[in-house]
């Protein structure tokens, strides 16, 4: 059955949905297409910024209504305004990989729901199907058609990561899954809202899957409220300026973004840029590495991406076409469209993706995808960063537009569950990787604990929030020296944190990560990789004695007990109050040869505790004296020594 399903077309059932250039919409649904061509410049700017602010209000409404830390802190969502036939007008400054997805969901709904059950004023459609268009089942789309005089004028839509949508593991990241049948249920678009009301039968069916039904119910109201606010604001705008004028502005926003994107492409030569990275441990118990490849071909005003060369789909680390596309769009949005108010529809007209199906980054049904949001999509983001950075480096002006890989290049999942201090069930997904580092630029260092550049408004929660959300006491959270990749410009340092259960007997822990054995933040132009993720654990420690004695341990080496590293995908870890869990989050990549770094910059890093003396000597070739000043003679000698080591140990080209 699986094989026959996989042999079908790119329809979102057996294989990911990829719409044709012209989508097929039943005449049962009428679209508003009239466009005023002569909108004056003042009205254009006023309405353009109005639309932008509507989309922003859409996002802030989700934050205000949702009680989920995933929405409130991580901003793991994105609101959008799309045209009547599903082209992006405005995307939001939140999680950027949703850019590859919302238009797919709207187009699929138009192609498959126009006739039955139909698309009506007051409807909203819900979906969390990776083969239609989400990163993983935890990311759910809610799409709302905006009607004007009986026709679809445009769409407002959002995609939000829900805290728990079922599956075998709390938090719904399922590291043991062999296929999607062992994961949360994927749902193709269905009419969840009718006449502006959430359907109670479908809501009950959805919440029944979740370990956190109250939180999911709030999230559901948040995404409905966001759409409702945006819809009402757009209708008020249409009322005021007329549908043709507002539609004319929407069209021009897209075409202006398109022109800007094409002008930038014109500065760059044609060619092909490629990179390879590796995921590891496809599921619990596995011990292999998996090749992930990405290339971009530039031909005039088009970019053609392909994942050919990527290993076949396997285990629990897969993503579908939507997440492949979303990962690619992250650096497109940030590097090419940073000054375009996230108007990405025009750029998408010039981007083709030629996916290799049945692979880890374009998996066919029924591959396991629930971890895609922490593994597959992040590896694609990093690869897209590198291939586009090497393209942009061909132009001195555009070479200032990119940064090296960073920002939790593989999100180290740490999911907690159990009973909280009041005896109630709790579930928490540690959001501290949101404080991951930003990679080096071509003209300056990266940013230590700078956050996820592809989630510009996202933040890490403070420790007090963590201690409120889970029955845990955090011993420390701090920057990690040497975690930033060495380079002429250093990658940003990341962070490490440690905790013990508090006012509960045990916390059940699950890890879901790649990037523990193999560093995934790869350097550029001679720069080195950022540090890998790392889960350390001390079982049966004396931490409680030390706390009773009035000291808070600041290093695992201070503790007695059995120390081990947790596996990248491990379930069933029962952390007691005597067990200390430390998580180190991957650092960001460096740029340029480390021995080209200004020695004074290395001395400043040493003084600030950002690098250690051994790293300064070994990787940067910098020696400082007892007062912290650069020893110029010793530094010159050490750097010459490194050059000699290179000459002596390298093979000559054949």
């Amino acid at each position, binding site marked *: 059955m699986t094989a026959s399903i996989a042999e079908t077309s790119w329809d979102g059932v057996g294989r990911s949905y990829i719409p044709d250039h012209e989508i097929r919409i039943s005449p049962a649904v009428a679209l508003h297409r009239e466009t005023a061509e002569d909108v004056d410049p003042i009205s254009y700017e006023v309405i353009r910024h109005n639309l932008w602010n509507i989309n922003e209000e859409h996002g802030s409404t989700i934050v205000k209504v949702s009680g989920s830390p995933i929405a409130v802190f991580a901003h793991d969502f994105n609101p959008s305004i799309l045209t009547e036939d599903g082209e992006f007008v405005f995307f939001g400054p939140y999680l950027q990989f949703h850019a590859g997805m919302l238009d797919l969901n709207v187009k699929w709904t138009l192609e498959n729901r126009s006739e039955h059950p139909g698309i009506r004023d007051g409807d909203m459609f819900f979906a969390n199907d990776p083969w239609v268009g989400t990163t993983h089942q935890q990311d759910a789309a809610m799409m709302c058609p905006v009607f004007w005089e009986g026709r679809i004028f445009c769409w407002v839509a959002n995609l939000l990561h829900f805290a728990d949508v079922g599956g075998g593991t709390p938090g719904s990241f399922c590291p043991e899954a062999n296929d999607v049948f062992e994961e949360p249920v994927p749902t193709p678009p269905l009419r969840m809202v009718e006449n502006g009301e959430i359907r109670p039968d479908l809501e009950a069916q959805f919440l029944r899957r979740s370990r956190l039904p109250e939180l999911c119910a709030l999230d559901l109201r948040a995404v409905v409220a966001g759409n409702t606010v945006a819809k009402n604001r757009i209708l008020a705008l249409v009322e005021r300026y007329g549908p043709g004028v507002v539609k004319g502005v929407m069209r021009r926003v897209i075409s202006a973004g398109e022109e800007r994107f094409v002008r930038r492409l014109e500065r760059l030569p044609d060619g092909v840029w490629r990179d390879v990275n*590796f995921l*590891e441990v496809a599921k619990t118990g596995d011990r*292999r590495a998996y090749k992930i490849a990405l290339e971009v071909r530039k031909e005039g005003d088009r970019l053609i991406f392909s994942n050919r060369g990527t290993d076949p789909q396997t285990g629990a680390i897969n993503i579908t076409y939507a997440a492949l596309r979303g990962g690619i769009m992250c650096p497109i949005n940030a590097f090419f469209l940073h000054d375009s108010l996230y108007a990405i529809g025009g750029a998408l007209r010039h981007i083709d993706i030629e996916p290799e199906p049945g692979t880890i980054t374009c998996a066919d049904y029924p591959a396991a995808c629930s971890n895609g949001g922490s593994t597959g999509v992040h590896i694609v983001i990093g690869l897209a960063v590198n291939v586009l950075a090497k393209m942009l480096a061909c132009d001195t002006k555009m070479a200032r537009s990119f940064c090296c890989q960073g920002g939790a290049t593989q999100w180290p999942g740490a999911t907690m569950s159990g009973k909280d201090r009041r005896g109630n069930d709790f579930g928490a997904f540690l959001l501290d990787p949101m404080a991951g580092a930003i990679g080096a630029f071509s003209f300056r260092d990266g940013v230590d604990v700078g956050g996820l550049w592809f989630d510009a408004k996202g933040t890490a929660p403070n420790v007090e929030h963590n201690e409120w959300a889970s029955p845990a006491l955090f011993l420390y959270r701090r920057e*990690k020296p040497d975690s930033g990749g060495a380079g002429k410009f250093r990658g940003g340092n990341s962070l490490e944190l440690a905790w013990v259960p508090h006012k509960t007997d045990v916390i059940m822990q699950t890890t879901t990560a790649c990037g523990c054995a193999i*560093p995934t933040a790869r350097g550029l132009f001679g720069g080195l990789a950022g*540090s890998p993720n*790392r889960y350390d654990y001390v079982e049966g420690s004396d931490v409680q004695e030390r706390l009773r004695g009035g000291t808070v341990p600041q290093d695992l080496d201070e503790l007695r007990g059995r120390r081990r590293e947790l596996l990248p995908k491990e379930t069933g870890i029962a952390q007691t109050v005597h067990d200390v869990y430390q998580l180190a989050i991957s650092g960001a990549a460096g740029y340029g*040869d480390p021995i080209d770094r200004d020695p004074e910059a290395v001395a400043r890093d040493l003084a600030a505790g950002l690098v250690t003396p051994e790293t300064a000597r070994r990787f940067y070739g910098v020696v400082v004296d007892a007062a912290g000043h650069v020893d110029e003679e010793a530094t010159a000698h050490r750097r010459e020594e490194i050059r000699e080591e*290179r000459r002596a140990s390298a*093979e000559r080209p054949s």
Partner: protein
Amino acid sequence: MATAEVQFRLGEYLEVAASDGEPRFRCAKCGHDLGPASGNYKEHALRRVAPLEEAGPLVGDPSRFIDDRMEIRQFFCPGCVTQLDTEINRAGEPIIWDIELH
């Protein structure tokens, strides 16, 4: 040696220069030739292959978690030994052809 006119700079250490009408990569620091721009400049660089643990101060032995043999490859300019690029790759995998100009 024919005179070469720089067409454009490519990142920190590479530039493309036309030599007798043919675009070629060369080191932007010392001018060492690194082959035709339509080819892989890494094939013309010094190459050092080392265990993955040498990729950074916090990189451990990958055999803790995986059986695949991973390595770091460093590519140096044959003239000035500047580190032009690095790869982290599986042993036996071909060199990544990262830049192919048309």
